[in-house]
């Protein structure tokens, strides 16, 4: 088993975080969440429905004993809206976690770094464990760490595209420089990609479309759990270094043999 994930003062049993949208029905979503072994799920405030039980995602998730809820602000166009949504979500859910999402373009859903930074500044002061969904920008990630975010959640590829770790080179820099958990959020399609993200040194991954749009969502959730676990164990075990060429049998520095080191 790999080591446990800590976010702020919270310990989580799994390094897989699950999204809860896009499923064919709530029962499949709940079973997929359970199959994933996750301890943290995100749910959009706009899918809280206190008036119609069968349409509500919040109610059934809040009844799960093994997971904590992380409301998200999907739908917010700017910092002000995100702050309002965050405060309302906390009032309803009581969760300390907040997935800060500000993607003003509803088509590509890419995060607005300017509004996200502004909202994070306010929400950290409000006492949230702020987990911002961001472009894979190493400078932005450090700026968010500096103001007290609990983690950063850079994207692998645009939401829903399943294009994998297209931002890999930037992720390497973010991971190297970060003192808070780095969670790859969005763009993953396969458990192999989740494993690859973990092998890079990510602290966790968040998956939604890849599970919800799979032929058998529950099985895919379990497969992702295994991918994440394998990748993390591999990272903790220390991967063998890669090499561009074979090691020469007559090393160039052989003349140093026997001399003072």
């Amino acid at each position, binding site marked *: 088993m790999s080591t446990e994930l800590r976010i702020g003062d919270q310990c989580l049993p799994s390094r897989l975080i699950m999204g809860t*949208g*896009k*499923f*064919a*029905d*709530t029962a499949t979503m709940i079973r997929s969440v359970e199959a994933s072994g996750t301890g943290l799920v995100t749910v959009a*405030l*706009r*899918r*809280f*429905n206190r*008036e*119609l039980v*069968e*349409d509500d995602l919040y109610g059934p998730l809040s009844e799960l004993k093994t997971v904590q809820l992380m409301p998200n602000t999907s*739908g*917010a*166009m700017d910092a*002000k*809206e995100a702050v*309002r*949504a965050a405060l*309302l979500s906390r009032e309803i859910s009581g969760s300390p976690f907040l997935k800060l999402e500000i993607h*003003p*373009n*509803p*088509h*590509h859903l890419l995060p607005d770094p300017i509004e996200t930074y502004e909202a994070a500044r306010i929400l950290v002061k409000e006492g949230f464990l702020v987990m911002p969904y961001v472009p894979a920008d190493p400078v932005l990630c450090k700026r968010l760490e500096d103001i007290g975010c609990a983690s950063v959640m850079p994207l692998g590829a645009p939401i*829903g*595209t*399943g294009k994998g770790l297209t931002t890999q080179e930037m992720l390497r820099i973010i991971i190297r420089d970060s003192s808070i958990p780095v969670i790859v959020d969005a763009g993953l399609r396969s458990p192999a990609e989740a494993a690859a993200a973990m092998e890079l040194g990510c602290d966790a991954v968040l998956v939604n*479309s890849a599970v*919800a*749009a799979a032929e058998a969502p529950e099985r895919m959730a379990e497969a992702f759990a295994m991918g994440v676990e394998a990748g993390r164990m591999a990272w903790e075990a220390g991967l063998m270094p890669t090499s561009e060429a074979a090691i020469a049998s007559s090393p160039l520095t052989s003349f140093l043999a026997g001399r003072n080191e």
Partner: protein
Amino acid sequence: MTVPQPDWLDPTPWIAAAQRATPEAAAGALRATTPAEREFAVLISPAAAGQLEAMAQRAQALTRRHFGRTISLYTPLYLSNYCSGGCTYCGFASDRKAPRKRLSFEEVETECRAIKALGVDEILLLTGERTPEADLSYLLRCVKIAARSFHKVTVEVFPMPTDEYRALVDAGCTGLTLYQETYDPELYAKLHRWGPKQDYPARLDAPERALSAGFRFIGIGALLGLGDPLYDMIALYQHATHLQRRHWRAGVSVSFPRIQPEVGGFKPGVVVTDHQLVQFILAFRICLPTVPLVLSTREPAKLRDGMAGIGVNKMSVASKTTVGGYSEDDDASATEQFEVSDTRSTEAFCQSLRAHGLEPVFKNWDSVYRAETRDAQ
């Protein structure tokens, strides 16, 4: 009379491309990594008609990727059928003998409660062209009433200037639906015989005025059956991409209204077959994978069920196209704007969606993201 068209709107070269297209070109367009206008023209062409199944396969994968296995629901409420327009194809045109009715504010409340009881959380309020009976001040009060019950209130009403759109946003309105009917200016002039709707450019630019005023979602469409569908579908594609470029925060959706028989006995100018309609929807999904595509109860149950989750991800439910009608028993004498084909109840429709492995989504928005909430704080 020729209406000067804006730079972004010129379907003619692509119509020619569509007419020249071969089945091989269609297969190629379907394989394109990032299909755009060129591929769209080929995919809606007669040459691609043989590719329908392959198009459906690609479309379904894209719909599932971007919208999941969900269908968002909305319900229309006709507030008034008073109209100053002279549309040849509409049962509410001002020369029609249809009995006129406007909901009182009490009736609007009752109707909202009845729709809310269906579970649907997105309401679309409709009027005709501007009249003294249904003007901006009437509409503002209706929006405010609806906004007390629904997280998402949208309108399909007469075009208006930016400041009036801003007043609607402030009243709690989030989305605007406005169909150009036909993008062909000459045909447009023939079909719209009098009234403010004769102003083609004012209608064409209205979505942009609404977006400038703070609307979040814009629904556009062309009424299929009026003119050359290739012209209108290519123009509609150009309109959608133009709006996305000019207003990068805007949510743009596309609807596919197809003309239905109505009271005035209007005969469609062209017949758009089920196969063609499906081909158009699939082409939009393939070329604009993140744009919500809408199919209303104008279409029969079988077609709606077939397209749900394949290309379409948003649908109206339990629609009545008479004024009011949700809170009382069906009034056979009331005049409909058009005939509803899919008359299933919310429950029956949702059951069918679920049987197809799709989740009906009743609430997909929150009033916390509304301008009136912004003002209150």
